[in-house]
């Protein structure tokens, strides 16, 4: 099997702040994505998903663990090779208005992006074709505009055109749709799908929106307090979530099609999570004694479906777990 385009292996990042306890933002987390695939990275604020995205992009150095790109560890590369590797991995950030230098025109923004490629053609024709790929038409009209003269949806398209300028193998998109109106959201997803068909680019889609994860990703990884708690094929995870946290996330989704009632609230975090037990323990409704003493590993429960929960693993058929699941759902 060809190696994943991006393979994040057991990375840990601890933020040490003056006067407070160190924060394990990412704790031994792994994530990989194959060419042409989309992996949704979901979780709430503070789960570490954006930090993990920044580690992958080499914007933050992890304490331990490695990032592999197309079968090579980035830590083994020379600085010239690392520059080239960075081009193969491009970000799209949440707020497209903050992502651009406001004093640069669209032409200057795209030229700068293209110029990173050795021997790249930066003539207007090349820029126009980039803009046309993100459906900003007539493209020539956009070249002399400034980012603030574009609508939010147009700016996000510009961000995408800049990301694809270096023909990346993987795009890491951090909440690219949050704040966008629903009609824009569907347009941007259509565009991302089209680019994927044309170039076989892989996506890591960081999102809090389970409907987007369900509609667009092949696989989903769920993060909680820096750790991966569940991962697997999107359909399997969303149809039969095994981790109580994933179950709570899915129970919170209010879709137009399935009747919804406010679920029973999770427990409040009364005790801080311990290093030794499950991070979700303080809020969990089904925890047992093992949960405070042993960190649950991710283990496979079904084809490529992995869960880090003592209960989802040990007592698969126990009435206890099923009852708890019914509660959460």
């Amino acid at each position, binding site marked *: 099997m060809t190696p994943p385009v991006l393979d994040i292996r057991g990375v840990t990042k601890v933020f040490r702040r003056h006067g407070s306890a160190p924060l394990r933002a990412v704790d031994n987390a792994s994530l990989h994505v194959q060419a042409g695939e989309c992996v949704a990275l979901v979780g709430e604020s503070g789960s570490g998903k954006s930090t993990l995205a920044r580690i992958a992009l080499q914007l933050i150095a992890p304490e331990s663990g490695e990032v592999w790109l197309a079968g090579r560890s980035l830590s083994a590369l020379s600085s010239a090779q690392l520059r080239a590797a960075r081009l193969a991995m491009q970000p799209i950030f949440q707020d497209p208005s903050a992502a651009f230098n406001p004093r640069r025109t669209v032409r200057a923004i795209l030229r700068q992006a293209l110029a990173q490629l050795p021997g790249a053609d930066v003539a207007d024709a090349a820029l126009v074709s980039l803009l046309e790929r993100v459906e900003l038409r007539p493209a020539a009209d956009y070249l002399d505009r400034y980012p603030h003269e574009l609508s939010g949806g147009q700016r996000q398209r510009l961000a995408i055109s800049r990301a694809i300028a270096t023909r990346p193998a993987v795009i890491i998109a951090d909440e690219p749709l949050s704040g966008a109106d629903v009609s824009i959201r569907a347009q941007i997803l259509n565009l991302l799908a089209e680019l994927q068909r044309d170039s076989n680019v892989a996506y890591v889609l960081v999102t809090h929106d389970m409907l987007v994860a369900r509609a667009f990703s092949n696989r989903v990884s769920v993060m909680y307090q820096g750790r991966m708690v569940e991962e697997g094929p999107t359909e399997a995870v969303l149809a039969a979530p095994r981790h109580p946290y994933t179950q709570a996330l899915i129970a*919170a*989704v209010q879709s137009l099609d399935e009747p919804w009632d406010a679920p029973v609230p999770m427990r409040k975090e009364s005790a801080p999570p311990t290093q030794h037990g499950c991070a979700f323990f303080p809020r969990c409704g089904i925890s047992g004694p093992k949960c405070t003493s042993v960190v649950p590993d991710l283990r496979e429960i079904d084809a490529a479906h992995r869960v880090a929960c003592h209960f989802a693993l040990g007592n698969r058929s126990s009435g206890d777990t099923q009852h708890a699941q019914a509660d959460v759902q």
Partner: protein
Amino acid sequence: MSAERAAASSILDVRGLGVTYRTQGRVVHAIQDASVTVAPGEAVGIAGESGSGKSTLARAALGLLPERVACITAGSIAIAGTDVTQYTPRQWEQVRGRPVAIVFQDPLSFLNPVMRVGDQIGESVRRHDPSVDTLARCIELLDLVKLEANVVRRYPHELSGGMRQRVMMAIALGCRPRLLIADEPTTALDATTQTEILALLRSLRTTLDMSLLVISHDLGLLRWNCDRVYVMYAGHTVEQGRTEDVLARSAHPYTRGLVEASRLRRLEDGRFATIGGDVPDLRERYRQCPFVARCAHAFEACREQMPAPTPAEGPGHHARCWLLQQERLPA
């Protein structure tokens, strides 16, 4: 119930409202023709995308439009039977927080960062009833929003996003409102916190016998938390009715487009359904249907005039669309 009686008994009655913003020579007709009523005990939703005018409507209903910049150009607003359309800021001081209160999307921009939570709730409590035991009432209000009494001594930055939202609700409830307007109340919150706030809003509505007006871009949220819903587009209320009717049996092509896009429904070619065309230009005041340029069903009548609300399937279900009147059109 006749229209007059409905209006007399409603807590909020907005009719044919027009609101225009003027800044630096630019004129924006943010609300062009919007009508919304909320009856006692009802939970009503306003759905719309950015620029639809839904937040402006909420602010107009509370006298919170920016002075000098915004002006009401048409229509009327009545609160509990009293016409407040021409109220001065002083008159609004009397009204605000009595029958109607509001909670916003972003509690941090609303709360005072250097003032303890208790003092901020206390201010609202005293404005309503100067003789009350402020601390006791604060603790009662915190309990109502499921926060512990010791929160009175905390500052907003010491609280989580969900707790801040609850504090803002406690401040709003300090005046015992009959209608609580929630403008995107959960947009900035995590999914699980969102559901807790929604559950809280539900239970407060019952225990305090209060009406709710929820303004949101999230159709799923409105679907399961509101009895009736209005859809706004380019400053117009284009469809209204029972939530189920409007969202499952939409009559207006814009509502249908919005529902399909929200669902992320795939078309036959595998693409997600979107609403084509450009967002409306609010520098224009529309006489014709504002959706006409994006509508697949548009015909001559649509380019000439916006139709009156026309009955659709279901009680109280109306849409402003010529398609519903097509049979009645003169040849």
